[in-house]
């Protein structure tokens, strides 16, 4: 049973996997700077080609046509999705790809079990570490697949935002218990001690996968809007862990190393996203935001204090500004305003104004969402500043333009301990000379709370759609310069 390269010693295969793993690590290292990141991605891809190529050539492929067909179909789907996607649809595509990886891992673990149970005969026992790893891979993979599909559906607007129901946690617990019990059954393989053929226990794996699938759906269904960056990062981590556990099933070092790298990456991103909202992962997954204070109060804080402005007036403010900070939020993505915003920045820079973008880690629907949109609109990465970097600079800033963001510039995170977002790191835009907030209305953001910033003495509201407002601002600026 040997493929084209099968005559070579086993260590050659292991060595090729080691080289592939090294290329993955080097590729990720390239991602530590925007200038080297594209090359890093190619290095990582080369590692993948090596790992897959050597596997195809090494082992005896009994059905090469099936394999070739599958590879072509998969490559066609991947290419088609990647080429036709708009930048604004990126979060759901990333979510979808996460799911594919997880789903594939669950299927591979299943196929291996079918193979093992089929070949060892009716009484032999498949090693416990193999069945345990398969059970884990099945659970993690199925949760990842269905969770990602639901997340992608939500991001694409196919599913409603946040769905909560009573007894929700109990239902999830029961489903999890079914999956875990099925997993335990697989590990112990009680049938193999008696006359029952072990192959009869294979359906238990599918029961496990089914329960985990339901769990994946139930876990993500209640999570809405602004919590999506956490979900995307978590699913990213899980897709890696699914691959790593499948590596334990197959005793394959490439899967273990590569899968673990991804698991670690997703874990770090999840932690960063949670910290940026000052919430725990459990709170995001199971908590949701509590109902906000009664409505009367909310209206009062705005009453008589909100000053609305026009593109003409904002243009006059910009005329005398020397430093401008633009704070984008999800509204910029929805309105596809990034090109107008970038053009405004470019015009200002050309007139000698210092312009930076202040980007909150959880702005948008996935980690780094705003950065990708702005990069697409040709904003140089040097202009994109992280929260810690931009916050100390607000007192020296003449004008802040907030477009499509709300909770991430809410001062009550610092001042009101009873606020649902208390303790969340926010952008201190109010410390600037003047703040212009571009928003459709005074409606609350995802956290469902009013924003005292809108009623500040140095805040002007520029009501309207992000793109229309920014385009109006651009043409107004061009007319006067």
């Amino acid at each position: 049973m040997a493929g084209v390269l099968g005559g070579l010693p086993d260590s050659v295969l292991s060595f090729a996997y080691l080289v592939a793993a090294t290329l993955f690590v080097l590729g990720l290292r390239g991602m530590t700077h925007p200038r080297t990141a594209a090359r890093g991605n190619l290095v990582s891809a080369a590692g993948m080609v090596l790992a897959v190529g050597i596997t195809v050539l090494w082992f005896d492929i009994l059905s090469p046509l099936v394999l070739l067909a599958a590879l072509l179909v998969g490559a066609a789907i991947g290419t088609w999705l990647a080429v036709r996607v708009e930048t604004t649809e990126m979060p759901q595509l990333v979510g979808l790809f996460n799911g594919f990886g997880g789903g594939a891992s669950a299927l591979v673990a299943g196929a291996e079990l079918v193979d093992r149970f089929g070949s060892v005969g009716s009484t032999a026992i498949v090693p416990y570490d193999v069945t345990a790893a398969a059970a884990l891979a099945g659970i993690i993979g199925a949760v990842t697949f269905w969770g990602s599909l639901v997340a992608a559906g939500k991001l694409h607007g196919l599913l409603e935002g946040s769905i909560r129901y009573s007894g929700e946690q109990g239902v999830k617990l029961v489903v999890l218990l079914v999956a875990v019990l099925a997993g335990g059954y697989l590990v112990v393989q009680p049938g193999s001690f008696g006359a029952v053929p072990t192959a009869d226990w294979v359906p238990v794996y599918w029961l496990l996968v089914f329960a985990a699938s339901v769990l994946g759906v139930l876990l993500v269904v209640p999570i809405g809007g602004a919590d999506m960056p956490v979900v995307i990062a978590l699913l990213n981590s899980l897709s890696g862990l699914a691959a790593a556990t499948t590596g334990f099933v197959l005793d394959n070092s490439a899967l273990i190393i590569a899968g673990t790298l991804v698991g670690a990456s997703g874990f770090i991103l999840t932690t960063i996203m949670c910290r940026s909202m000052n919430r725990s992962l459990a709170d995001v997954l199971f908590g949701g935001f509590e109902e906000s204070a009664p409505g009367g109060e909310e209206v009062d804080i705005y009453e008589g204090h909100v000053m609305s402005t026009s593109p003409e007036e904002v243009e006059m403010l910009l005329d005398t500004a020397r430093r401008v900070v633009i704070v984008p939020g999800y509204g910029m993505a929805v309105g596809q305003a990034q090109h107008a915003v970038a053009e405004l920045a470019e015009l200002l820079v050309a007139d000698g104004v210092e312009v930076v973008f202040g980007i909150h880690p959880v702005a948008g629907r996935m980690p780094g969402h705003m950065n990708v949109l702005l990069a697409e609109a040709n904003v140089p990465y040097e202009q994109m500043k992280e929260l810690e970097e931009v916050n100390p600079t607000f007192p020296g800033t003449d004008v802040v333009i907030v477009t499509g963001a709300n909770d991430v510039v809410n001062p009550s995170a610092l001042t009101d301990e009873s606020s649902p977002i208390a303790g969340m790191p926010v952008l201190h835009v109010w410390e600037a000379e003047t703040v212009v907030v571009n928003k459709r209305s005074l409606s609350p953001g995802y956290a469902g709370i009013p924003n005292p910033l809108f009623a500040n003495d140095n805040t002007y509201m520029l009501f309207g759609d992000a793109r229309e407002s920014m385009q109006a601002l651009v043409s107004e600026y061009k007319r006067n310069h």
Partner: protein
Amino acid sequence: MTFVENLTLFVLAGFVGYEVITKIPATLHTPLISGTNAISGITLIGAVLAAGSGSSTLATVLGFLAVVMATANVVGGYLVSHFMLRNFGRRRGD
């Protein structure tokens, strides 16, 4: 390899991943996600073996589906990252 040897790889790779990835700036987090996404498509190796082994029809069918999903993940993930990163590397006016 034994289970413990595999576990050793798992733990060490976890630390390497942690050290490397904490150095990646927030501005690249989306391409990082899609790039690591593509890496998690490494499960394609296992899928290739399952699809090509021809041991049973069921294993072949599962393998086929797994290869399709994993390949879509790998190819799509790297391509999407590539398109995004091309934007980041580009300077204004290019």
